[in-house]
């Protein structure tokens, strides 16, 4: 049927035969899109007397909001922390490839590096929307060693408002840096590998809201000092605030039992991240990446010739599947951990990470096994699985 609308001439697409994730449940509803955003079909019907120009038959697929990866260090041989002259080409390459994993937005992540690297790399990373060229860049995510107070002003200007702070972990590692923390918190979201729970609670009260890869690179949980892990159930978190925590759910970096403990303690804060290294997406075997030689065996990436893990190489959709299987959570919870929660963490919940009317139409179509069948950005198909 030709469309008929008084508000806009833009074509309207109706996704039919699908189950959509809305209001925290999978519902059998059609999804309507116009001008890159989710459209309210009831308003269209009564106010505009309009209807769809085009119907897409989803053949029973699940439609979830596109995945958002807030922590990804590279992939397909590209390392975002390499101080090269053409960082944006590398970012674009990865942005295009991760569409296959259902990722529609991401934060290219820089590992802890000397300031010179930040000065060179960061200006080349631009925030931009996604499309057929690749997933959107929401901002960069960087791990920094907090500078001494007197260097704070000359600290590389935060290009965007996302930042992670990985500090030295150990008792007393944070003395005197409370004001630094406060300053950085005011400019960004931050995470800390601080020593004990009360320091962590302080940081949250100052503005920190994200724990980078829970359990990894922090003191282990102790029943008299739970450390950062205690933030998951802390009663010192200000009202209305949520502490989010990243989990690498590849089955290797976190024991499934630990994953379950975290999930059950604080399900609404769980953010799935890949924390992927440059080796992600490369075929099994040996690869030379920068100074390192990496050996890929299945889902493991070792420093060649050793059994030392060099980083995670699971893709985002693998993480979603593994998280669901290991935690026993519902399909909705698994999908929200990769879409809704990262969007909320980044303060973008009003337009990303959900399928509410008015939100960006970044979608991932999945089958019941949560394998990605197609990816859409702003209502446009940007990737489809081949036959």
């Amino acid at each position, binding site marked *: *049927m030709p469309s*008929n609308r008084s508000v806009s001439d833009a074509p309207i697409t109706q996704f039919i035969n699908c189950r959509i994730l809305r209001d925290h449940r999978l519902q059998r509803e*059609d999804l309507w899109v116009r001008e890159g955003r989710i459209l309210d*079909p*009831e*308003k*269209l*019907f*009564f106010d*505009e*007397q*309009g*209807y769809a120009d085009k119907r897409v038959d989803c053949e029973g697929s699940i439609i979830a909001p596109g995945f958002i990866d807030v922590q990804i260090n590279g992939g397909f041989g590209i390392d975002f922390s390499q101080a090269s002259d053409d960082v944006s080409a590398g970012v674009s390459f990865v942005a295009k490839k991760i569409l296959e994993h259902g990722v529609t937005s991401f934060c290219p992540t820089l590992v802890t590096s000397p300031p010179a690297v930040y000065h060179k790399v960061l200006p080349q990373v631009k925030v931009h929307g996604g499309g057929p060229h690749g997933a959107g860049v929401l901002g960069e995510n960087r791990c920094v060693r907090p500078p001494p107070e007197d260097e704070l002003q000359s600290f590389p200007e935060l290009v965007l408002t996302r930042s992670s702070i990985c500090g030295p972990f150990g008792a007393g590692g944070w003395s005197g840096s409370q004001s630094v923390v406060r300053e950085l918190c005011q400019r960004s979201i931050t995470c800390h590998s601080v020593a004990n729970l009360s320091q962590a609670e302080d940081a949250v009260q100052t503005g920190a809201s994200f724990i980078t890869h829970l359990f990894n690179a922090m003191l282990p949980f102790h029943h008299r000092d739970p450390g950062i892990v205690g933030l998951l159930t802390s009663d010192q978190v200000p009202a209305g605030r949520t502490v989010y925590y990243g989990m690498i759910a590849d089955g290797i970096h976190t024991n499934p039992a630990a994953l379950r403990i975290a999930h059950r303690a604080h399900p609404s804060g769980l953010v799935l991240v890949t924390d992927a290294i440059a080796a992600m997406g490369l075929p099994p075997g040996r690869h030379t990446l920068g100074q390192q030689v990496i050996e890929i065996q299945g889902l493991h990436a070792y420093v060649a010739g050793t059994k030392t893990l060099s980083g995670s190489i699971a893709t985002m959709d693998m993480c979603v599947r593994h998280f669901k299987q290991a935690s026993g959570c519902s399909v909705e919870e698994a999908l929200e951990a990769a879409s809704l929660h990262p969007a909320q963490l980044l303060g973008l919940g009003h337009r990303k990470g959900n399928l509410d009317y008015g939100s960006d139409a970044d979608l991932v179509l999945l089958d019941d096994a949560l394998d990605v069948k197609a990816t859409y950005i702003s209502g446009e198909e940007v990737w489809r699985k081949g036959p």
Partner: protein
Amino acid sequence: MTGSGSCDKTDVSQHLTAQLKNRVFSERAGTMRLVILDDYDLASEWAAKYIRNRIIQFKPSADRYFSLGLPTGSTPYGCYQKLIEYYRNGDISFKYVKTFNMDEYVGLPRAHPESYHSYMWNNFFKHIDIKPANAHILDGNAEDLEAECQAFEQKIAEAGGIELFVGGIGPDGHIAFNEPGSSLVSRTRVKTLAKDTIVANARFFGNDLSKVPTMALTVGVGTVMDAKEVMILITGAHKAFALYKAIEEGVNHMWTVSAFQQHPRTIFVCDEDATLELRVKTVKYFKGLMHVHNKLVDPVLSIKDQ
């Protein structure tokens, strides 16, 4: 019988069949049918089949739309479900159907889950192929409510009148929001709701009486009487007394559905429970006519055969 052989019997049965046909389709003679089905699902299905056959027999087209009056509420829900099923199976299309809903609350936001716009969208329109411009529902948030009512009557007239008006009955015998005491020759207008109705509706507003709308726009009894045919759906024991008042007592403005005793073509579709307050004699008589009534829905037609 003193017939002399098989020839006579064939003539007689052919003659009878022809007469039956005439009985079923005798429009000018005036018909009041009470169709009684065993339960809610069967009543819903019978009603849906009847609507389906009426639309298909009418052969609607771009030059000649089928105008259908529609109700809301729990009673017609099953009927809508069946009609959606028939559409999904490709047996019926609403492309050339115009719909006119009976009523809508005043002052309730259109997007409110309890508005009749929401009901019709979620339970019917979003599942079928009706053109948005052909789905007419009174606007309870119009600037000038009286003008809105008059415009609605105008739209019905422009559509050539309503071919089939489907309605329900309230526990107090009202049709649409024509509460007890309404004029039996009324037209579309603003009505203040009776206490009974507000209490009955409270369950949709969290049982908070203060949240239930107190006024509504409604088609009048006269508006529905103008339709070529009226079909009233009545199911459940809580409607039984109203049905008794509507068809076994006189025409009375305190039980406004009784007005249809004077309509040339009326069908009341009910389940067993709704007949609980009727005389055994009435129920037996109409049940005995089911073989005649069923000819209206058997065979059930399909656009696939056209």
